[in-house]
């Protein structure tokens, strides 16, 4: 009798395992799917990284291709995104040929008069646009081969390299590049900013290494008002408000890192003590 009852119990256990395995499988699948969604996308080639296509009108000389790598080697982010007025979000600037001609946006520097590093900067958007004009093609270059003047590999050949393309921070620090932070007619002469303290941002999970955030490095490029309050509305150090998930979605650090500043896949860039096997 006792043997029979034992057999019955075993059968019951087998029946109970199936839903458990199924539930575990569903959970695992869910995890894989969510990880796929929330993992940073692989970064493109450094020459393609930060490329912006400005396509305002269906007529005229065609969309503009803007390479962040070219301009960031000469100017700070702050100069263009604060003083010149380029918004950080797509299609929010309201840039037109007219604003360029009137000395704003691209025309703030590209006016055919300003001289930079001994060269006169070509004028953006003439009064008489010509779709066959090679001058227009310098910027309106989408889908046109051989019209761009500068090529990434050649242009950045002497710049220090990092895990991902040029190490812009090292390039600035070593003096290989000296990004300008003032444009005549728009910028306000400012005194040098006092160094703000660096922060060690404690992460929400014990297995994630803390973030070392340098105010000094960031303020050289961005000033204060580019990040506060629109990108970082709070000074709270915990990651409750700025998680990796929100970064991947393009908020907080992700407003620049993952778009133009070094990509989010470069873990050690922010988490310096992260293990070497991390990407």
């Amino acid at each position, binding site marked *: 009798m006792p043997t029979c009852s034992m057999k019955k119990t075993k059968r019951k256990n087998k029946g109970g395992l199936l839903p458990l395995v199924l539930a575990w499988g569903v959970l695992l699948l869910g995890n894989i799917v969510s990880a796929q969604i929330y993992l940073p996308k692989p970064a493109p080639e450094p020459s393609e990284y930060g490329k912006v296509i400005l396509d305002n009108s269906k007529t005229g000389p065609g969309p503009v291709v803007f390479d962040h790598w070219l301009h960031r080697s000469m100017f700070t982010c702050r100069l263009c995104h604060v003083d010149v007025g380029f918004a950080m979000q797509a299609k929010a600037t309201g840039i037109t040929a007219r604003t360029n001609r009137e000395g704003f946006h691209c025309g703030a520097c590209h006016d055919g008069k300003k001289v930079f590093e001994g060269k006169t900067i070509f004028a953006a958007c003439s009064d008489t646009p010509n779709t066959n004009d090679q001058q227009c093609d310098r910027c309106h270059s989408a889908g046109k081969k051989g019209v761009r003047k500068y090529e990434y590999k050649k242009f950045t050949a002497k710049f220090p390299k990092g895990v991902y393309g040029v190490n812009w921070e090292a390039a600035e620090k070593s003096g290989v590049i000296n990004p300008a932070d003032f444009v005549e007619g728009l910028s*306000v002469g*400012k005194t040098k900013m006092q160094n703000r303290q660096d922060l060690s941002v404690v992460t929400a999970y014990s297995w994630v290494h803390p973030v070392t955030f340098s105010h000094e490095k960031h303020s050289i490029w961005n000033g*204060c*008002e580019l990040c*506060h*309050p629109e990108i970082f*509305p709070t*000074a709270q150090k915990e990651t409750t408000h700025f998680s990796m998930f929100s970064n991947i979605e393009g908020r907080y650090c992700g407003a620049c890192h993952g778009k133009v500043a070094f990509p989010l896949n470069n873990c050690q860039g922010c988490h310096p003590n992260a293990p070497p096997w991390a990407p």
Partner: protein
Amino acid sequence: MFFTTKFKTKFKLTIITVLLFLGLAVFCGVRAMGAPQSSAAPASPAQETWRKEFDDVCGKTQDAMSFSPEELTDLIRRCDSLRPQIEKLDESRKKVYLGRLRMCRGLYAYVLDEKNKEKK
């Protein structure tokens, strides 16, 4: 008869003078429209006044942390009073300077808020 002729001559002269004046005005207007001034450059003393105030207020953002709550409140007030002046500008200037004013005011308000939080 003589009176009528004199009157007619005077009337003609007046019309010619008015037409000449109008022609000159139209010519000057067209010239002014045909050659727009660069918007980035200051155009008139009234515009220079707002620009001076803008440069003074928004030229201090790098020192925002060193200001007292009273100074920050005053800077925010000055930003607010600049806004209607900038809204009256032409479209291109308005686009650029309203954006800059928003960022500049936002920073002062943010620092003030953080300082008030620290006090508590």
